[in-house]
């Protein structure tokens, strides 16, 4: 019995550094962001920070640029994640066939994931650039005129989505592929014996069994896409107009260029809240597979 108590004490001793670290690295910065967001705090201003209450949050309510950036972020997440999921799914099924050569192809397909997002953004910026871009040159070979990939509102959004899709589809593919590989073969055999057609097997067996993996990849990708800033930074700076100004980029310009820390922090806090809420919904779905 004393062993029990000892073990518990040992556990506390062993866990506390990790908890402290967690607090220092995770919780403290968030609390600090909340603290800053409650102040008029501009590095550019000679005035010292002063308490502002919820002023910064009220401002958000009237800030058209903020609501625009929320909408842009939502569009970006929806487009990027859905396309990545669809493509990743297809690729995973393709690679799941045991065909010669596919293994190498699958490994190669992972390269984009390893690239730095900033570099990806740069590469796509130059590929789609109207003056230097290879894309328009290729199009011209087919007699298609130059397209304003980065300077037309819709095209610019699609271009950024394209770069994100290019980089992250392999990751989605990998997760789905791993999940597919770990599905028990015998369940599919049982389904064949039960008389299901291949399409029914996909709909009734494969898809539901992949659900946890799909949800996980959705959460990871959605949160990641929400935080995406590099592609916009390299490719459009949020333009044209504000059509690719995602929330993180607005936060960045506010915090790092205009140095209005209080206001940027308020936006960041809103963003943390949105991410946390969104993740909660998903986590619950994962934890309770019954809620189909």
């Amino acid at each position: 019995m004393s062993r029990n108590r000892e073990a518990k004490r040992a556990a506390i001793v062993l866990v506390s550094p990790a908890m402290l670290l967690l607090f220092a690295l995770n919780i403290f910065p968030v609390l600090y962001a909340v603290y800053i967001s409650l102040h008029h705090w501009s590095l550019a201003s000679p005035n010292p920070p002063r308490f502002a209450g919820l002023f910064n949050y009220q401002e958000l309510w009237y800030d058209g640029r903020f609501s625009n950036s929320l909408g842009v972020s939502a569009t970006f997440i929806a487009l990027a994640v859905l396309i990545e999921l669809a493509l990743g799914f297809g690729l995973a099924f393709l690679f799941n066939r045991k065909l010669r050569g596919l293994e190498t192809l699958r490994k190669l397909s992972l390269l984009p994931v390893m690239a730095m997002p900033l570099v990806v953004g740069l590469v796509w910026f130059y590929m789609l650039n109207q003056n230097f871009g290879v894309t328009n040159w290729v199009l011209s070979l087919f007699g298609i005129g130059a397209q304003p990939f980065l300077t037309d509102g819709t095209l610019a959004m699609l271009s950024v989505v394209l770069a994100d899709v290019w980089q992250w589809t392999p990751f989605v593919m990998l997760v789905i592929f791993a999940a597919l590989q770990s599905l028990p073969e015998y369940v599919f055999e049982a389904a064949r014996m039960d008389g299901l057609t291949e399409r029914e097997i996909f709909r009734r067996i494969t898809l539901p069994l992949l659900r946890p993996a799909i949800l996980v990849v959705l959460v990871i990708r959605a949160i990641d896409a929400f935080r995406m800033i590099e592609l916009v930074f390299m490719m459009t700076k949020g333009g044209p107009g504000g059509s690719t100004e995602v929330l993180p980029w607005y936060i960045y310009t506010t915090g790092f260029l205009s140095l209005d820390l209080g206001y940027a922090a308020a936006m960041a806090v809103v963003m943390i809240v949105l991410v946390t809420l969104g993740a909660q919904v998903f986590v619950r779905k994962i934890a309770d597979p019954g809620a189909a």
Partner: protein
Amino acid sequence: MTRRTSAAPRGALTGILLAGSILAGSAASAEGPLEGRSIRILGIGDPVFQVMQKIHGQMEEMGGGSIQLDVRPFDVLHQQVLLNAQNDVSNYDIIAVDLPQFGEYMPYLTDFGPMIEASGYDGSDFHEVAWTGAQFGGRQLGIPLQPHPEILAYRKDVFEEYGLEPPTTHEALLHAAQVISEKSDDMSGVCWNAARGTALGQTFITVMGDFGAAPIDMEKQGDDFEMGDIKPENMHPTIDTEAGKATADYLLAMEEVSPPGILNMAWDERVRVYANGGCAMTYIWAGRSAIFEQDDQSPAKGNTAYLPHPSGPGAPPRSTLGGWYLAIPANIDPERKELAWEAIQWLSSPEMIELYTQHGNCVSPRRSVSQLENVQAACPVIPAVDRMAEAGELAGWQRPPVPEIQKIVDVLGAEMHQMLSGDKSAEDALESSQRLLDREMRKAGYY
């Protein structure tokens, strides 16, 4: 088309500016101004510091000590300087300051006055406007390193071909641009900073200067404005004004005669498109002209003439002066102050300025250097800028040295881009810029 794409890799290389790099090395000898000591510099990814990175080894040998050069992108540098100012003792001996930033940094910088006096330093070799640009409240806060104006570069050969006059006014520029856009297959009229954010924001302010107006309500002083003493009541934004409207209209007019993708074009890219023959004119920070002047492949090399910013109706030509100064943080370790001063004297010495021009930095703040033959050969822009300086065509008030300057730039950069993208009318963009900035100034407590 194919010729243009060939420039992509080079563009890509210079594009990776964001990642800061730190260079440090050991001194090869203890002879030279550094006398075996180590100097810590916080710089910017602009040509002059890029040159320093390029010839770092050579410089350490010349300096006789080690040079720790910390090169940051603009916004990171900005933040870094402000954060460093909060420290008890500065982490840097020397920092790079952009001309419009002096207003913001004023409290954090050391006055060079006493040091200049004690060492008998002679600043008269520097251009008057460059030297005095760093004077605030009777204090000399920086030593010019790379002060240069945003000017207009144009292709002499092309203008001759189409029988066009040098574009000294907006009207002339638009006309020439239109002619060239129409007559030439591959060449557009004019390249400029229309990319969203800082690039476009600064363009708006400098173009507004072409109409003799500043973005905030400063005191007039002849054709120019009083910058040394900006009071809170001067902080009212003056965007939604006649000058603002004229500016917006001019930007919209320019958009028509610009190369494709203009809405995403900024800084280096405009110069590169010009260098490749993609446009006949470009707005350019003078120092960047090395991009084509020192490139044997460029059709613009040797065929370029320089003019101050073309002016709007009823205003004299005024090119916006900007660029980088060396300054000493106020919180420097007192024991290192002398070293910092000696290093700055060395870094801004005629020999070093000359050296920079030979490696891709076409700026000379010193008359003596400007007159050197090899300097003029490598950088034809230098004598041109010198002439503008003599003619009093350079000014810094377009970007007033107030802490909120970046906010002004940011708001304009976002709003005007909406206008250029067709999302908003000029009136709406001006109105909302005015409103947002007014709110900003109130928030900051000026009025």
